């Protein structure tokens, strides 16, 4: 199954990824612009055998050690794009079209994955294209949702909307959950209307260690610590045992961090 866990540095659905790891899913194709720690953890846990991505790194810190190890050992196959190409793939998928034309120059990435140019029927120019990406499931984490499944995001939206509209099925986790109609006045923040959303789970701090604008900050200390944890395969597995397999759910994961630790991340200082 092809899974897209959206959120460009912001609102990364970590709680959902951890639950996928706990349930020992396997043979997933993971897609993401910036795999980030979320996919490094999922790759370390062996849930994926294919990665469709742009820019694999720990933003501001360095490489993704588990990703690197999996590539070096041949445990995972790769399909690599630029960020813009990934968004263009989703835009085609969202529009129900098979391809999308790009201005972007052809890079050497095209040597490693399917690509084609078309001839513009007006100008005769050779136009690079990318194929549509239609994930089976796109997962988003949002600040607010209502019981009709309407999803609301404030702050950076990244490629969340394109990824969701391109997917066959959309599921969401949310920081806060409201009865229907309460959020109607926040129309500018509407990410997706409820009819496009199959299920919503209420998971406060579900984006930790990434951030939720207006609610809590990015846990930069953990992003920095992750390199040392993940570089050592044994230590990485021990971390997964302790923090993911060893916790029954996200609530237990958060209580392992402890209230004091999390309060430092919360905007305004209190959870």
């Amino acid at each position, binding site marked *: 199954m092809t899974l897209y866990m959206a959120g460009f540095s912001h609102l990364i659905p970590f709680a959902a990824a951890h639950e996928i790891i706990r349930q020992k899913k396997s043979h997933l194709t993971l897609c993401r612009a910036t795999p980030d720690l979320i996919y490094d953890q999922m790759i370390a846990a062996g849930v994926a055998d294919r990665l469709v991505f742009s820019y694999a790194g720990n933003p501001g810190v360095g490489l993704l050690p588990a990703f690197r190890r999996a590539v070096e050992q041949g445990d995972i196959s790769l399909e690599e794009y630029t960020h813009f190409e990934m968004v263009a793939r989703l835009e085609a998928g969202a529009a129900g*079209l098979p391809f999308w*034309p790009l*201005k972007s120059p052809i890079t050497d990435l095209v040597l490693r994955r399917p690509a*084609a140019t078309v001839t513009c029927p007006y100008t005769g120019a050779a136009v690079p294209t990318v194929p549509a990406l239609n994930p089976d499931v796109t997962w988003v984490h949002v600040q607010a949702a209502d019981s009709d499944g309407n999803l609301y995001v404030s702050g950076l939206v990244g490629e969340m909307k394109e990824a969701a509209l391109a997917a066959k099925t959309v599921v969401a986790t949310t920081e806060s959950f409201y009865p229907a109609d309460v959020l109607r006045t926040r129309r*500018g923040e509407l990410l997706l209307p409820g009819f496009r959303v199959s299920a919503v789970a209420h998971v406060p701090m579900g984006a930790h260690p990434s951030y939720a604008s207006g609610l809590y900050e990015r846990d930069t200390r953990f992003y920095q610590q992750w390199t040392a944890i993940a570089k050592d395969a044994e230590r990485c597995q021990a971390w997964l045992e302790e923090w993911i397999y060893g916790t029954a759910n996200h609530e237990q994961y958060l209580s392992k961090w402890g209230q004091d630790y999390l309060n430092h991340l919360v905007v305004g200082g209190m959870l």
Partner: protein
Amino acid sequence: MSKLLSAQAMVDQIPDGASVTIGGSSLSRKPMALVRALARSGRKNLTLIVNVGGPEVDLLIGLGVVSKVIYAFVGFEVLGLAPHFRAARQTQQVEFEEWTEYTVMAGLDAAIKRVPFLPTRAGLGTDVLHVNRSFRTIEDPFSSQTLVAVPAIHPDFALLHVNYADDRGNGVILGDGHIDVLCAKAARTTFMSCERVLNGEELQKFGRDVQVLRIHTQGVTEIAWGAHPTGCAPEYRADLKHLEEYIAATGDAARWNAYKDNMVWAEHNQYLDRVGGREHLVSRLHV
């Protein structure tokens, strides 16, 4: 940097033969004061690019300054057909290219994305491809499906009317944004009128309703009632009474000349007096 300009200074920059895309839709949020200023400027051979055109297209055709219109629809909504547009189509005095609402958006979007075309299924299996001979098809390189290739539209100018703006050219749209943002991004030069100029800090409070961004605008002017006789939600609705008078005036040369003298060859404040004055407009049209 302040981009505040008078409407006159804006239209002074628009040369004969320019292509102009106009924001708003149907009888909603058309930049009518800017359009009247353009009409007074004496510019000729304009190409108009609209999605759902109405009084702005009809007025400029009626003044004989339009040589081509790219459009999905032109009409007066509940009041029926657009009289000058209809007459020009019947006499073929103006070149017309009929698109669809989505393809106009895709054509502007292609220009914004700097690609020569964007693919779509819109139009396949319809007469659009026969009515508009300029559309060509393209074969998808991955699955060999045939799709419509919508050519990029590169307007020289965009004219918009929004609720609020700051002097740097950010614009707040409170109701339906229509295709204004696409117009602003696709056009080489964008001029925007607004009901009220606010300072930047006040404007920021509108969050995502700040739809037009300053990097896309070259001129801003405050013109209260600048969309009249179309509406500007949520403040005032379209002036159907005035539009009925307009339609009635188009049937007859003497009445059309009188309408032009009264309503077009008038500065905006004079125009507002001639349509009954601000207080009268408030009582009739405020929502």
